[in-house]
């Protein structure tokens, strides 16, 4: 061991040795060709399975209205012909990708093509039945919300150079304390605050362990998740369960309609008749984006995450920037955790976050450490979750375990197929040492 250690330099090479990375938005042309081929394959599936595979008499009905909005007539479509038309469009998008290989619009075109596939899939699923499309989108947004909080938390931490694997734990802590305080005081806003405090506390613990003692950030994160899982489960059994009525029965935030806007067909009920957490996530999304990319604070944070030594040279205190960001990030995740309890089911149950903290992390990576990129990824996962619950009701003949694993499989596919080798902030995960 000692011979080996003496012969080799330290395990983590200092960040300044890295070559300047290429622009993270560039996509290799091979990958674009792959995406195009994938779309063409989807078009084939649409043509044969969803189009020619069903009787021409099959109709699918999408209900396009939900309570506060103005009434819109339902949309009834012939499954076969809609699928074939959509397949042609999807194939066109795929071929465009294969032959043009434009850098800039590639993800947009791929997204559009994939949306066509989903549309066709939904008509196929809803053949001979009705599907409330608006409600499905609203559910998507609700399932997306905690993921947005989680990935914003990840962005806050990682842009300053600290990997936050502990989002799952901060979710649980926020969900637990949010439910308990919301239940005891009867004041839901105090519950949100409590969630933020709980998440921030574990953010602080992560910062304390990694910044002060330089322990491996992934290990610190994993240990914090284990600790939060154990602690919330223990406290649920020991404290909440004996007095469920007082301690674990908070009210939940009701949906708040924004006057006039919520009357808009389709968009209204989806975007403007949601609970506080959805609006809060939207506000935070903009705040974090503008903060990171348009303010002096953001410039400093990014400098610390990319090249801490350079930042220190111009007078930025690296350690305190990181402390602040990791604690704030933890608090954001804690609010996201509170949305699991006082934002939806109104009760804490052990391990209720079911790995979504990690899915949020994947969304952050897929979104390339950018708030709106992460939103896009989170919407994809949110849609999967929503789709899964609707498919379970429609009884399409896909066994429910497969529906339940869909969001996780898509996460793997996305992380390995679409993202490829991503470029995180250069100093992400590297402990900082003054020279």
């Amino acid at each position, binding site marked *: *061991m*000692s011979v*080996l*250690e*003496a012969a*080799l*330099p*330290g*395990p*983590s*090479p200092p960040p300044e040795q890295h070559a300047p990375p290429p622009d993270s938005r560039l996509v290799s042309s091979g990958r674009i060709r792959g995406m195009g081929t994938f779309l063409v394959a989807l078009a084939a599936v649409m043509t044969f399975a969803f189009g020619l595979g069903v009787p021409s008499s099959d109709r699918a009905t999408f209900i396009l209205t939900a309570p506060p909005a103005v009434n819109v007539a339902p949309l009834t479509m012939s499954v076969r012909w809609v699928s074939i038309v959509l397949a042609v469009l999807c194939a066109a998008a795929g071929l465009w990708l294969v032959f043009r290989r434009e850098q800039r619009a590639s993800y947009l075109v791929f997204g559009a093509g994939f949306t066509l596939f989903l549309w066709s899939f939904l008509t196929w699923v809803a053949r001979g039945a009705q599907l409330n499309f608006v409600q499905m989108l609203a559910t998507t947004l609700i399932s997306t919300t905690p993921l947005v909080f989680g990935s914003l938390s990840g962005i806050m931490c990682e842009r300053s150079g600290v*990997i936050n*694997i502990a989002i799952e734990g901060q979710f649980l802590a926020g969900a637990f304390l949010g439910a308990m305080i919301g239940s005891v005081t009867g004041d839901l806003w105090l519950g949100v605050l409590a969630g933020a405090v709980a998440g921030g506390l574990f953010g602080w613990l992560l910062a304390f*362990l990694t910044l002060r*003692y*330089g*322990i*491996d*950030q*992934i*290990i610190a994160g*994993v*240990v914090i998740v*284990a*600790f939060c899982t*154990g*602690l919330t*489960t*223990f*406290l649920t*059994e*020991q404290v909440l369960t*004996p007095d469920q009525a007082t301690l674990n029965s908070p009210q939940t935030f009701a949906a708040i309609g924004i006057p006039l806007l919520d009357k808009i067909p389709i968009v209204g009920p989806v975007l403007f008749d949601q609970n506080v957490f959805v609006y809060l996530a939207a506000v935070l999304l903009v705040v974090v984006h503008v903060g990171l990319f348009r303010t002096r604070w953001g410039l400093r944070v990014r400098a610390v995450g990319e090249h801490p030594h350079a930042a220190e040279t111009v007078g930025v205190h690296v350690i305190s920037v990181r402390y602040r960001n990791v604690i704030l990030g933890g608090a954001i995740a804690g609010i996201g955790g509170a949305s699991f309890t006082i934002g939806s089911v109104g009760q804490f149950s*052990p391990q209720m976050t*079911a*790995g979504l903290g*990690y899915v949020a*992390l*994947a969304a952050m*990576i897929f979104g390339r450490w950018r708030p709106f990129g992460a939103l896009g990824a989170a919407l994809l996962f949110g849609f999967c979750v929503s789709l899964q619950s609707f498919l379970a009701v429609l009884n399409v003949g896909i*066994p429910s*375990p*497969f529906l*339940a*694993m869909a969001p*996780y*499989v898509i*996460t*793997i596919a996305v*992380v*390995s197929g679409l993202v*490829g*080798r*991503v*470029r995180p902030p250069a100093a*992400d*995960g*590297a*402990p900082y*040492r003054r020279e």
Partner: protein
Amino acid sequence: MPDQPGARNPAAPAPASSDATSDATSDAAPPRPRRPWPAPLRRLVEANVAVVTFLSVFSALLLGGVLIIVTTPAVLHALANIVSSPGRALGVAGSTVGDAYSAMFTGAIFSPSSLGHAISTGHGWTATLTPISESLVSATPLILAGIGVAIGFSTGVFNIGAQGQLIAGALAALYAGFAVRLPIGIHLPIVVLAGAAGGAIAGWIPGYLKARTGAHEVITTIMLNYVMLNLLNYFLTTRPFQQPGQSNAISKTMPSTARLPHLFGSGLRVNAGLVIALVLVAAAWWFTRRSTLGFSFRVIGLNPRAGKTAGIDARRVTVLVLTISGALAGLAGMASLAGTDYFLSSGYGGNIGFNAITVALLGRNRPVGVLLAALLFGALEVGGRNMQAVTNIPIDLTSVIQALIVLFVATPVLVREIYRLRGTGDGSIQLSTSGWGG
């Protein structure tokens, strides 16, 4: 805890490649001139591996005690009257915590009264030895999966997917168990190999994805855990895995030829799985310390660039490490299935996969360390069950204690500061941080 054979000699100077923490604190606390203590005494106040580990366990149990005190209404009630009757308040607090931990001890190791009875009468040995047998049973899968995770960690690969790999191994072993009828001498090895193969496949997937596309294994292995949990649910409700005539999610049972034999008679559940685990501890020690492949694993873990320069194919190593790691986790699933449970149900494996991570960290990624850590965690698990039965304190306290132990072990400098140990050896966990890009 005994000193580990693989532990670094505390008197030796810290190696050049040691982490930042040891440098930082040696600046902060300059050695005071003192008459040197005799060596054995000095070792007790130094921050070496054994002392830090012991103090970590001690601190975690202490904090666990505090947690019991602040969450038990009877204790809080007594503490509210601490001014009027301080003796009673402290007595209630002490006895609550004491009862919990003594129930944990008697459940996990032995009960003194039962031992006395057994010695004096010569009967009841089975009952006396049951706790320790249960602890060994509980430790067996942790040893196997823990070694797997540790091999990954020391190569710079974070395999968080032991849970999913364990389920894959158990499913494969179960299939090998009920699908064929063979004499035990042939059947059992097939079941064991099937378990390893199932886990290896589940470990190969994230390895291949990482080598091929750069998908980070932390994300993919965690996601595969959830995929495998759902896949298990699917298999448990369909032929050929589901128990015929059952509507619940219960699998068929292992035939007697596919079960790991008990080591000390049918009264004690400790079985041949433990032997497999111990053999693999030795094999892992030989592999990491003596074999060429193990050496290249370690080089990649310590310094990927040096490894690449020396001609080691880092991608191949990544795939191999995750496959081996998965195979060991699969064996863990097989050992629980063929050793004690004999059938699968929803959520099989519980926390074993995640505890394997903490066991690997606590054992500092060395095979013998993992063995000792797994024995400790197995004992805590079994003791926790008894504690819940006797004192009604939820078993989840053990997960809190386990996480705290690892938290302290992972931060030896913190332990050194709290207990004002002398800083020489640091006993920290050697790992390579590669972040997301690697």
